[in-house]
């Protein structure tokens, strides 16, 4: 029970507290910042600072008495809505299925057969994370760890140009027009940090060094690793060692995602599993790896149509959406903003029309 005047606060705040009737720390116990700011006519940050000082002092004196530093679920929700915005993609169906976009602060795995569009989605997200906040984006930087060599600049420039064009068509008010001046292909490229890893040792070493890099670049909101399976599937000799390394990797990624408030996107390959004489296509790297990512997206073909299925997510329902890969990037399947320049060609030895690639 200490007098308020002995706390390390600015004199004007102390005067206001005393004149409002709070003379001892016990008077301030159990008060919310909003109440305190109203009664003592302080601003919200000042009231919060007062309560934090009291908490610290009281906790130190009485050894654990006073308010604890835990958060309620409501406070967590408010914090999430303010600080952790989702990464909006240019595919409205995917955004809807994920409840507003790719959530920041979680690990997301994208698995699929070769050629289905995993790298395309990663490159699209690399551009989407930089969309300015006045357009509903996150406005952050990103780190791209490439293990396969599929980060080809030609394609990145295509997707960035299409993203800039899309946003400039949407710009309505002055704030957005001002933001478009800093959202160009050059600035998009300057906010992408590329790392090339050739084997699992380099990948682990790079992840070891990454927290230092992230502290120096606090605007990073997305980490893409394309792909983890490529380097780890070569470890055939000791599968238990591989599982251990993957578990470590998963823990590191989850810790980085929460501590630095960024989304971690990992790409995985598919493998066949034989079960009782039948073969089935499953994500690679084993079952224990399946527990690591919070959200799992499976990209697959149904005939000529590409589909994305969310098959693991704590916050969203399992759903499947259609998408297509255009020259502009990852888009909704029914979207025909611009006519495609390629006409379907005719070939005499083509089987029934169901095989023909449709374009609008």
């Amino acid at each position, binding site marked *: 029970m200490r007098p308020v005047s002995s706390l390390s606060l600015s004199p004007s705040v102390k005067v206001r507290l005393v004149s409002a009737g709070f003379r001892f720390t016990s008077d301030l116990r159990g008060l919310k910042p909003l109440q305190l700011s109203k009664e003592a006519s302080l601003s919200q940050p000042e009231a919060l600072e007062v309560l934090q000082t009291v908490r610290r002092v009281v906790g130190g004196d009485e050894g654990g008495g006073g308010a604890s530093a835990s958060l309620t679920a409501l406070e967590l929700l408010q914090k999430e809505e303010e600080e952790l915005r989702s990464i909006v993609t240019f595919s409205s169906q995917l955004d809807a299925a994920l409840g507003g976009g790719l959530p920041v602060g979680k690990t997301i795995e994208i698995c*699929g*057969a070769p050629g289905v569009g995993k790298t395309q989605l990663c490159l699209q997200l690399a551009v989407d994370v930089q969309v300015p906040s006045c357009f509903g984006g996150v406005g952050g930087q990103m780190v791209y760890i490439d293990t396969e060599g599929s980060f080809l600049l030609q394609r990145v420039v295509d997707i960035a140009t299409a993203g800039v064009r899309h946003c400039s068509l949407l710009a309505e008010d002055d704030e957005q027009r001002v933001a478009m001046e800093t959202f160009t292909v050059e600035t998009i490229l300057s906010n992408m*940090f590329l790392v090339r890893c050739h084997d699992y040792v380099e990948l*682990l070493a790079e992840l070891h060094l990454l927290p230092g890099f992230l502290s120096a670049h606090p605007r990073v909101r997305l980490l893409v690793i394309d792909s983890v399976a490529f380097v780890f599937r070569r470890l055939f000799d000791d599968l238990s060692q591989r599982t251990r390394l993957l578990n470590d990797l998963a823990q590191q990624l989850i810790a980085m995602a929460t501590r630095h408030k960024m989304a971690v996107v990992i790409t995985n390959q*598919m493998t066949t599993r034989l079960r009782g004489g039948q073969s089935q296509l499953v994500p690679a790297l084993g079952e224990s790896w399946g527990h690591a990512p919070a959200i799992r997206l499976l990209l697959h*073909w149904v005939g000529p149509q590409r589909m994305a299925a969310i098959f693991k997510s704590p916050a969203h329902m399992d759903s499947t959406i259609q998408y297509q890969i255009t*020259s502009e990037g990852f888009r909704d399947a029914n979207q025909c903003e611009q006519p495609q320049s390629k006409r379907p060609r005719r070939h005499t030895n083509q089987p029934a029309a169901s095989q023909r690639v449709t374009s609008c």
Partner: protein
Amino acid sequence: MSISASCIWPRRWLLLYLLAHLFIKELYSLMEECHKIISVCVCVCVCVCVCVCVALLLHRGECRRLESGLRLSVGCPVLDELLRGGLPVGGVTELSGESGAGKTQLALQLCLSVQYPTQHGGLNSGAVYICTEDVFPSSRLQQLISDQSCLRSDVPPTLISRLQFSDHVYIEHTADLESLQVCLSRRVPLLLARGAVRLLVVDSVAALFRCEFQASDWLERTKQLLSFSSTLHHLSQEFNTPVLCINQRRHRDPPNPGRQEAPPLSSNVSPALGLAWANQVMVRLMMRRLQETVARGNQRSALRRLEVVFAPHLARDGRDAAVWREGVRGLTGIVGVF
């Protein structure tokens, strides 16, 4: 040791011996772990120097070690347009198709186009061609060389006549996996390190892996395939060299809902070797032989089609092509087909 001898050997010595044996075994495994930890630490120290490159620098042409943006031209502007410049340097490209489709023709053409200087789409160096099944078609290569000025009308004829094409194509014949591994681990790196070659062609990949393993050796085959592809990737990255692998075709199995490969644009054949190999390939091209024929002057050729099945930077598209005396040429517009 006879029974009488074991009786007189004190038990505690035996125990000590066993303990020492176990201790040494543990020590060895510990040393192995230490070795791994040390190698990770070494790599950490090395990686401090590894660049986290900003993509803008790549765009401006710096940091060429990571992605040079170079492409190896095929030698025909129509096909180069399909590939947005040509084969990417620094990745594995697969060319698959049925027999007689023209894969070897395209590969031979690439062995010549790599020898041109960079301003004409080449890499100023030679090529290594590894044959695993048929004998190398040297007479066809000579025919292509003599008609280069006809194919490459964009290059000044003085430059073409100055290039000694056949001196820079190195041919290897490997009949089995072991000799292929020896070739890839000894002879090819020497040529690459000297700068004598900057294209590696393996014709064909499927031949070795299909016949050497029975269906039940599937796991062993996957291991060998992965180690082979990792060697190719390592060579490609270290020496910034395009690698072209020719694959055979396999008739597609009846539609299986579990099968999930990128469907070819319009046919019912799919490349051999399955998913394990497909995961290692960056660019997959398919060459098809169609039923029509095209004519030009006094030459006739069956109509072909070169298609992109998947690639990180290419749309799924195709171009018609024909194989003439001077090489593979893409066709534009409506050609006289019959």
